């Protein structure tokens, strides 16, 4: 370029060259700008999704946190046989039927001797949870020699007291507008100054099944129901799906029938889950007469739902195993089945497990199909077998969210937290297994 007298053709060439480099330079700038913009969009997307996630977790934690504490009240209960309605030397069946709520009411009246009016008495009785009598019953059955004596017990308080102790009740509202009245506040404050009120970790929540009283309602029933249902789902869907995927991918001939099956599997993955619920109701309950509300039926229905998901991802995982490995094993004289079991399946396992965990997570959060097969019933007992009536976590959340009592609002959020914790635990197991199966190339 700096030549003083370049020949004509050389000038032309250098001009053309300069043009090219200038054009490229200009376009390079544009390309980089585009790349920067694209990266920015990606970053914004990540930040947005992270903030949504944080919002979800924070609101649920704030709302659900109070559910993990519970208020107890110390009472001196006089266990005289008259109030309890017992004979001398009562047996267990009598002890079970004894009037514990009467004894509790009596001791409440003794604590506050000023209360005379019927209406006030009723308000006073509400301080102790209806579940308190069962706690007392347990204690008396464990130590029947205490009958006739005075027993100091800590009993769970009623829903309103619970809310008040957690600061959820707005005391500044006029009395008429709140459920927790001034006289009740007075009693609680006096008990508090006597150190007869204590807030503890809410073990009831983890040790009991559902209840109509929010302070006595626990998650254990739903948690066990979920576990049993998911075990049934996993035991059914994993082997069936893997076997189906292996057959379709490794053994089945490619023809119109396998194409048809493939299209159907892909379509099944997109079928709304409530349809599977209706199918379960028609087939498993009405035709096979399996028990209603049972984790067995729930697991069967959820298996139908998760099967396509696992099959599709398993097939993708099997397809991604390099053909050179199959050739190597076949060339050594392995049979087709040996190739699959020794080499292809272990190599595809991480992908299969990923698909399985996606399917299981779907099953864990599913409500609609379970409503159809009666897992929405109010069930107090904790299920111990797959044929026991049970409910599952999402259905429990759905039910609690529908109830008017204040205590159930926090229980709902707490149940969501338990559900999320369960999900994280499940994912952690899957990640661990995936790591174990992963091989370096």
């Amino acid at each position, binding site marked *: 370029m700096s030549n003083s007298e370049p020949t004509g053709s050389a000038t032309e060439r250098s001009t053309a060259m300069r043009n090219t480099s200038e054009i490229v330079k200009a376009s390079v700038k544009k390309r980089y700008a585009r790349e920067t913009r694209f990266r920015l969009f990606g970053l914004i997307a990540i930040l947005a999704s992270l903030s949504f996630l944080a919002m979800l977790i924070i609101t649920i934690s704030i709302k659900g946190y109070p559910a993990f504490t519970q208020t107890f009240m110390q009472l001196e209960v006089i266990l005289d046989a008259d109030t309890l309605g017992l004979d001398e030397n009562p047996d267990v069946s009598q002890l079970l039927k004894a009037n514990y709520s009467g004894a509790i009411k009596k001791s409440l009246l003794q604590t506050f001797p000023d209360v005379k009016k019927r209406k006030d008495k009723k308000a006073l009785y509400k301080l102790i949870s209806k579940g308190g009598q069962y706690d007392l019953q347990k204690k008396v059955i464990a130590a029947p020699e205490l009958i006739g004596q005075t027993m100091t017990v800590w009993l769970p308080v009623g829903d309103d007291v619970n809310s008040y102790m957690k600061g959820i009740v707005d005391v500044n509202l006029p009395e008429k507008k709140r459920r927790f009245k001034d006289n009740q506040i007075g009693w609680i404050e006096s008990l508090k100054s006597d150190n007869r009120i204590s807030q503890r970790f809410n073990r009831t929540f983890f040790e009991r099944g559902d209840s109509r009283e929010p302070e006595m309602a626990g998650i254990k029933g739903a948690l066990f129901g979920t576990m049993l249902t998911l075990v049934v789902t996993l035991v059914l869907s994993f082997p069936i799906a893997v076997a189906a995927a292996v057959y379709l991918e490794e053994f089945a*001939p*490619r023809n119109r029938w396998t194409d048809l099956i493939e299209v159907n599997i892909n379509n099944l993955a997109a079928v709304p889950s409530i349809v599977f619920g209706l199918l379960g109701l028609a087939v498993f309950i009405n035709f096979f007469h399996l028990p209603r509300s049972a984790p067995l039926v729930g697991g069967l229905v959820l298996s139908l739902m998760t099967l396509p998901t696992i099959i599709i991802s398993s097939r993708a995982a099997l397809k991604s195993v*390099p053909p*050179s*490995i*199959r*050739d*190597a*094993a*076949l*060339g*050594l*004289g*392995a*049979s087709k089945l*040996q190739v699959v079991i*020794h*080499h292809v399946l272990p*190599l595809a396992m991480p992908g299969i497990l990923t698909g399985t965990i996606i399917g299981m997570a779907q099953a864990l959060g599913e409500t609609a199909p379970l409503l159809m097969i009666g897992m929405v019933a109010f069930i107090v007992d904790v299920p111990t077998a797959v044929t026991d009536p049970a409910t599952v976590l999402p259905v429990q959340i759905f039910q609690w969210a529908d109830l008017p009592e204040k205590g159930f609002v926090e229980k709902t959020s707490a149940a969501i937290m338990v559900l999320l914790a369960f999900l994280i635990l499940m994912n952690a197991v899957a990640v661990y297994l995936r790591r174990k199966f992963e*091989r*370096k*190339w």
Partner: protein
Amino acid sequence: MNLDQEQPQEQTIEEIVASLGDTVGEARVDNPKMTCTGVDVFYADKQAIFGVDLDIGANEVLSMIGPSGCGKSTLLRCLNRMNDTIPICKVTGQLTLDGEDIYGKQTDPVLLRARVGMVFQKPNPFPKSIYENVAYGPRLHGLSRNKADLDDIVVTSLRKAGIYNEVKDRLDQPGTGLSGGQQQRLCIARTIACSPEVILMDEPCSALDPIATAKIEELIDELRENYSIAIVTHSMQQAARVSQRTAYFHLGKLVEVGDTDTIFTNPRHELTENYITGRFG
């Protein structure tokens, strides 16, 4: 326009193949290990191999050369029925191993592949330890009575493949962690461990550097004492170095076959001459 001039008349592959005439040279040997007689291979409607007659002699290295897509790999894969895995592939004609029909109803492909081992173009060790890679075949066929026996087979195979000294301290490490040349020799060791009678090699050195290639060629020469070997290669020098007989393929037709020395010094067919002198693209 230029393209039109290069192809003055439309010729089907069948017509070209017919114009090539009969195979030149000696397709048969005195003591054949494997034989092919009138072998045709079809991929769906497309014919890939046209009436090939060819023998692989005992304790001989046969190299198969020819331009890409001429069917040498296809024929090689017929010899241990690896083509069975391709559903659209159809083989007609007769192929024998020790006089037994390979494609006969009596023959079990699994047993056949134990007798006719194969080394592939790309090194493909299993993502397992070096030991497991070699032990896989013997274990599969139950060739060892106990652990010591198996250890012995593994060590002998690795020795024969000339890789034992390089890996003896790390038999428990993944075979995929070795270099390309080592991986290929591991694959050869894996094939030898099944004690096959014939070893088929499909361009075993195409992904390797000259030093690794030299080692493998040396190995092939040693292996000839105990095995029959058929090797597909794109390197004419390699064919000249390692093989006793050479077969030249063109468009699915065996054009010329004979002693390697004769083929390379005095080719009889025009196409063979063009190919080995590099005039053919």
